[in-house]
């Protein structure tokens, strides 16, 4: 029964993803009839509408899928490793760390190409993740939700002030930083797809390989040890995987919050807590959330567009509120 229910939900999630992809291809600030969209995809064509679909909407949708999957899976891993229900790349300041890394690469190292600054994004994400977790885990009580969230908020504020303080003389970089502050799928380089996917695949494989370990960890550290898991190694692998996924997502689209928070909880509600189900489920639902948010952002203020990060946080906050209002989170 359980298995049937789970496969049922997986099928539903796949259908939802397909629908989201279709929406993302068909809906935009420019009105294109669905028949023309299909036509452009299947038969090519050189009309302006076909050009828009192929050269703008397809890459945008692909980036959306990649970023959504990366952030959602990173959220699952962060929540699993920290055993903390509100762990998430955006709230913990990891995304901001990655974007600061990108800015430093552009400002100091003179790195202007994506293949160059993606490493700086990883470094920034990793440093921020380690710092926030180290801060939150110190002291009695360990890394509780409140402490993690506060450490993340402090990290976000600190990174912002460091950037505007140190780079204040460099107006050009500051402008660039503003660009990196709001995650958006629009106007990103198409080459990004080709450069990001190896990192994304590596991160996803790494994380999938530790599904069993995450299950054990969910039962508590002692139980995990009793089950023969190397907890320290597990945490390290998880941190590495989450960092690579977040860094890649930020390098592709800038910081986007709340996807890593909302999606894992939704996935767990649908398929239970076993990570071999939760992880693929999150990888399916993450893109759905990003693509739907992006589509909403394209049509609310025509003719211009709202960056996807704005929409996801407006959609994501009710999730956080509902989550926090459940007693278990605060008492954790």
């Amino acid at each position: 029964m359980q298995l049937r229910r789970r496969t049922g939900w997986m099928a539903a999630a796949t259908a939802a993803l397909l629908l989201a992809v279709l929406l993302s291809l068909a809906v935009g600030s420019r009105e294109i009839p669905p028949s023309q969209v299909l036509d452009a995809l299947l038969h090519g064509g050189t009309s302006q509408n076909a050009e828009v679909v192929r050269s703008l909407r397809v890459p945008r949708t692909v980036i959306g899928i990649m970023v959504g999957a990366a952030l959602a899976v990173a959220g699952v891993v962060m929540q699993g490793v920290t055993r903390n229900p509100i762990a998430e790349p955006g709230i913990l300041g990891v995304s901001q760390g990655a974007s600061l890394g990108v800015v430093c690469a552009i400002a100091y190292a003179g790195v202007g190409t994506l293949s160059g600054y993606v490493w700086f994004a990883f470094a920034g994400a990793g440093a921020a993740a380690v710092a926030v977790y180290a801060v939150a885990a110190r002291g009695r009580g360990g890394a509780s939700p409140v402490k993690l969230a506060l450490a993340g908020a402090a990290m976000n504020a600190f990174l912002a002030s460091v950037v505007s303080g140190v780079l204040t003389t460099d107006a050009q970089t500051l402008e660039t930083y503003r660009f990196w502050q709001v995650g958006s799928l629009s106007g990103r380089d198409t080459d990004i797809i080709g450069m990001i996917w190896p990192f994304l695949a590596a991160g996803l494989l790494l994380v999938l390989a530790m599904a069993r370990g995450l299950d054990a960890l969910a039962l508590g550290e002692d139980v995990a040890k009793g089950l023969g898991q190397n907890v320290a190694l597990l945490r390290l692998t998880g941190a590495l995987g989450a960092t690579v996924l977040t860094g890649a997502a930020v390098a592709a689209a800038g910081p986007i919050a709340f996807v890593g928070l909302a999606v894992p909880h939704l996935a767990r509600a649908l398929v239970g807590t076993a990570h071999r189900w939760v992880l693929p489920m999150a990888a399916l639902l993450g893109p759905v959330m990003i693509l739907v948010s992006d589509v909403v952002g394209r049509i609310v203020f025509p003719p211009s567009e709202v960056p996807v990060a704005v929409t996801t946080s407006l959609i994501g906050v009710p999730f956080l509120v509902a989550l926090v209002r459940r007693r278990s989170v605060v008492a954790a």
Partner: protein
Amino acid sequence: MSRKHSARSTRSRYALAAVLLCTALAATACSSSGDGDGGGTHKAGGGTHTVDTAMGPVKVPDHPQRVVVLDTAELDSAITLGVKPVGATSAGTSSGFLDYLPQDELAGIKNVGAIADPDMEAVAALKPDLILSSKVRDGAHYDALSHIAPTVLTESTGAPWKADFQLHAAALGRTAQAAKALTAYQDHVAAVTAALGGAAKAAATEVSMVRFVEGADIRLYGNASYIGTVLKDVGLARPSVQDVEQLSVDVSPEQIDKADGDAIFYATYGDPKAAKETQVTASSLWKGLGAVAAGRAHQVDDQLWYQGIGYTAAGKILDELQRDLTAT
């Protein structure tokens, strides 16, 4: 634990003392604010005259010697009228002043900070006898500025640039030069219209203005913009999307076909990649635009066409318009 209890009355006294402190502060705040009456502590030689600014009538010296300009339009006006300011703000992404102005006329002007956020003490250190800006930029700083020197603010900037220029000229005491600049501009406009083949031909040419802006959508400039008024003066037509009484119509890269016209002039504010210029102009959608295919899409200087606002900029824009529109 009992310590906590007895602290109660202590706390009240502290609060009382806090009140007294605040009262004292408030009192000084109120008394000192009445002192300055926007009057010039620095008197320039000669008399004064009154100009009507966005903040009410202001008395300014007849022949101001040390002028500080806090925005690009004011800088253009001053240079046009032959006044070299002692201080100016720098524009957004570039650290220098407007690049189209003759650099020798800009040498020695002190940078007093960023537009809309000038450093008051740097302005004061120049001991100006006149400050020019607009309410939309420095309305919040008016108190501080008017203590430093008579401050003349226009309401806004951009589209009402001709009226603003007249106010600048009145404040600088150079109305005669202003009249000359106006006549020169009108003659120049007429010459360009003639060079384009007359009013009828100009009215049949739709000129599209595209600006790629970092961190924002692509802007198609409308009639209520500086550049829009210049194009109207020449008698050029605008694509219907842009023929509206607003600053700009913002579009996403998907709708770049709205930018089509008989000729396109495009500029970029900030980093071309972040402003999406690189991606858009490389796309086949852009290359499919009529004007682009016909080789009538011209990249222009953002500082000249969009940032700098005034008669000096207008003269150079007219030259480029004529050159580019008559090229083919």
